[in-house]
């Protein structure tokens, strides 16, 4: 009787919309259209599990096939077209635009993956060339400080941090005591030295792309320890600084301090040497839909006629040619090419290429991949912000295991706040074993994914934010990015794939082990140069 009555009260409270119950986020999700996207999951698992292959209905001859259309694949295609080479096709694959994909609620666009591009340093000349062509770099593309289109430079206020119920400017926690302040200063002093640091070969120790970095073994030895143990050895212990560094590793690499190579951890801070004539160092480039417009631009140059929809299921040499079998809406198809650029993640390439081991790459050399959850929610209006603490582009919660949220409408220029907005939340599953996280993600209900994705938003705005939500789309990226664990720099399998120059080439940020646009496009560019001879 008691229980029945409690049940009745619970139902009544839920029906009245009263947020009274613990774990009420599921109740809050009621009535909200929530879609869950799992890009590439069905195709990827079919690839892994299928043994019987359909026979192709058609065969087409082409000089080069680019398998995959993420940053690496499209960059390779873009560069080929720029050099006047046109006899190629891009096979879009099940995840067009890869981690730089975007979506839209009607006219409101948002990212479903990466959401910005740092100012490219002078080593990233390939990225600068692309930005010059797009008009994002207005002048000085070859200079130390190019001038960027202001509409694309992130607008002020760019970042804020939620701590103890209020916002502070920037993401570095302040006001945590003199020790924390002193350690923060010491760390950034340290990083500034490392930015200029050169190895015995005269090259900078930390660069983007990482391929241009110094090979000095004394510096590369940093890769043998974790970032956590390096920090401990250097006497960095302050909780504020440690939280911030851990946040950065999860944000860029999907891994915690303890599972990130010290070289990679320092690379995040020391390699980004980009400057702008009209912005401070550390500024970033962003669009409402993240960095998807960069990929759209490359697609535009490549031309729709050179882009095929369809997912590859087998790539193998056939005499002097390479045979690419794929499936599209009409069934199985075949491409015969002189050369193929594999721009899929390496764990996908492993299933596509039966002979990958013969190229010097072993299965256990696949880098661990961090799962991510990206949540996009359409809001019917902007939630109220405290006075003097306006909404920033990137909003992070101190102490949270999630990565905060970015505001898709931040770069719009309007006389009044746009009538709607989209908030994009990010969560990297860095705290558990990636395999276990993937299994629980595969089984997770929409409600629990929604709750996970909304954690930081509810911390900041409280459950009342639900009232402003019109729709939500959750993107599960179970194999989102390679995490640079200690030892990743000396992975012999990756070195073998980087050096390959046969009929089959590889191009993906996995080759660097750092999931960055500059790395992906670098390998795209290297592959294109090999094609062009």
């Amino acid at each position: 009787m008691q229980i029945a009555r409690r049940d009745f009260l619970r139902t009544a409270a839920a029906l009245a919309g009263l947020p009274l119950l613990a774990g009420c986020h599921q109740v809050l999700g009621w009535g909200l259209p929530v879609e869950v996207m799992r890009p590439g999951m069905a195709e990827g698992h079919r690839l892994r599990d299928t043994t019987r292959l359909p026979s192709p209905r058609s065969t087409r001859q082409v000089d080069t096939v680019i398998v995959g259309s993420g940053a690496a694949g499209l960059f390779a295609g873009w560069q080929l077209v720029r050099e006047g080479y046109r006899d190629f096709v891009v096979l879009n694959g099940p995840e067009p635009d890869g981690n730089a994909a975007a979506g839209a609620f009607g006219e409101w666009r948002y990212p479903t993956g990466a959401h910005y591009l740092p100012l490219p340093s002078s080593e990233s000349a390939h990225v600068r060339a692309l930005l010059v062509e797009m008009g994002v770099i207005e002048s000085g593309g070859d200079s130390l400080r190019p001038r960027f289109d202001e509409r694309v430079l992130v607008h002020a206020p760019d970042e804020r941090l939620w701590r103890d119920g209020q916002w502070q400017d920037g993401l570095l926690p302040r006001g945590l005591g003199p020790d924390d302040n002193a350690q923060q200063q010491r760390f950034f002093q340290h990083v500034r030295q490392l930015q200029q640091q050169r190895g015995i070969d005269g090259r900078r120790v930390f660069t983007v792309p990482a391929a241009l970095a110094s090979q000095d073994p004394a510096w590369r030895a940093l890769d043998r320890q974790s970032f956590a143990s390096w920090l401990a050895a250097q006497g960095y212990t302050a909780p504020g600084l440690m939280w911030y560094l851990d946040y950065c590793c999860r944000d860029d690499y999907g891994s915690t301090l303890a599972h990130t190579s010290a070289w990679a951890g320092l690379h995040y801070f020391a390699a980004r040497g980009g400057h702008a004539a009209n912005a401070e160092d550390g500024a970033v480039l962003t669009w409402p839909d993240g960095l998807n417009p960069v990929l759209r631009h490359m697609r535009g140059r490549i031309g729709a006629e050179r882009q095929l929809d369809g997912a590859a299921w087998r790539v193998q040499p056939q005499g002097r040619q390479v045979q690419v079998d794929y499936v599209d809406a009409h069934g199985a198809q075949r491409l015969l090419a002189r050369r193929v650029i594999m721009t899929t993640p390496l764990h996908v390439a492993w299933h596509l290429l039966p002979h990958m081991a013969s190229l010097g790459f072993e299965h256990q050399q696949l880098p661990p991949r961090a799962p991510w959850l990206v949540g996009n929610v359409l809001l019917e209006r902007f939630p109220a912000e405290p006075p003097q603490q306006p909404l920033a582009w990137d909003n992070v919660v101190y102490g949270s295991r999630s990565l905060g949220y970015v505001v898709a409408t931040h770069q719009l220029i309007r006389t009044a706040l746009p009538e709607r907005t989209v908030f994009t939340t990010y969560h990297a599953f860095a705290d558990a074993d990636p395999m276990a996280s993937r299994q629980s993600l595969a089984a997770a209900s929409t409600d629990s994914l929604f709750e996970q994705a909304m954690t930081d938003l509810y911390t900041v705005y409280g459950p009342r934010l639900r009232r402003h939500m019109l729709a939500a789309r959750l993107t599960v990226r179970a194999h989102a990015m390679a995490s640079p664990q200690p030892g990743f720099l000396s992975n012999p399998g990756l070195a073998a794939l980087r050096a390959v120059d046969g009929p089959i080439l590889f191009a993906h940020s996995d080759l660097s082990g750092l999931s960055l646009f500059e790395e992906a496009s670098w390998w795209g560019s290297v592959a294109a140069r090999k094609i062009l001879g």
Partner: protein
Amino acid sequence: MRDRLLILSVFVVASCGLAYELITGALASYLLGDSVLQFSSIIGCYLFAMGVGSHLSQYVKDERVLDTFVEIELLVGLIGGLSASVLFAVFAWTGESFRLTLYALVFVIGVLVGMEIPLVMRALNQREARFAELVSRVLTFDYLGALAVSLLFPLVLAPKLGLARSALLFGLSNAAVAVWTCRVFRHELLRPAVQYLRSLVVVMVLGSGFMVSDMLTHWNEKAIYGDEVIHAETTPYQRLVLTRWKNDMRLYINGNLQFSSRDEHRYHEALVHPVLGALPWARQVLILGGGDGLAAREVLKYPNVQHITLVDLDPAMTTLFRTSAPLVALNGGSLNNPRLNVVNQDAARWLEQHDAEFDAIIVDFPDPSNFALGKLYSVPMYRLLSRHLADNGLAVVQSTSPYHAPRSFWSINATLQAAGLMTTPYHAYVPSFGEWGFILAAHHPGYIPPQHYQVPLKFLDREATRQMFFFPPDMQPWKMQPNELNNQLLVHYFEQDWSQVIR
């Protein structure tokens, strides 16, 4: 006789009960906007609270029924009577806890009102009236009272007395019922003297409240706007409040003064005529912002202008200035002129999406007081603007005050120059704003201010125009940085400037 009296008090009590609900609902929709939401939520809260009251009434002991009834009448009278005045004061002076106070008051009044009818029925039941007859009589008068007030309130009381005094009047009625009950049933009450005394105090409080309520309302409204509010409306974009004091009409948007009808001609003549007076060939004119139609009124004085496109976000604003008689009188019906086309869209977005060219562009955006508005004063925005400006055309931008906000004013000037435009800054004295600034922009140098005007003007002539373009020693140019979107210096300048002006 005594029973009939009780039944009559049901009528009064029911009237008062509905009245408080209507008054708080009206007040909430008047102050917060969205009347459907306000009325629905207040009625819901009130009815629910009445249910709670009815539930609680069972705990009143039989021998205390009449005493409790008197006490409740006094409490309802006191709280309900003062409710509107209190809410108005809370809104005027604190603003933040308004909703909380509103619903708390509605709930408390609802609980008390919910106890009234059950108590009366029990009192009558104790007198051994027949139950069927009793229920029928009580509820008949209950609903009759509701009908009376629902007609009386909107038709007579609200327009004649206003909300605050209507509430006080109903409070007095509740107190009257208490006094009356004390008198008639003095032998049945447990403590008649105490109840009498209490009634007296409540009647005095409400009575004096009634006397001074005019003063109170005035004082509260003054606290908000200083003058009598003749129109208030909350749109999805902003809150529009129109006030009048004698012949001075003022428009406030989100509490900021937009114009005063006494001197708006100075602002709008200064905004429009240095541009239009120098462009006798101008045919196509674009006005961004300016939904009050006052700048358009000045532009329409030029017969050579064939077409005006006015882009203002808020349809409520342009509708108000198209339909309200005193406002149409003020803008000369400019928004209804066939030469003018109103586009209700975000001006920045409209510029992005269209590519028409204009001979004159008049930009009357809100001040750059926050990051969102600061973007309207940026290089990309001005580049966009210059793409819509004919080769020999002129644009003008309202640019805050060169006297009170020199950093902001000269930063806007630097921003226009950074966008590749030739600028000519000028200023005019507008009494309700102070010294105000404008910046003229063109593709080519060589702008010369008009020497005479072909159209009738109140403020500008040759000498007044010459003075506008002269910057005296205390208003010399400052060397400022242009406003870039990634740092929005202008927003910081603006804060800095006005923090030194406003005490």
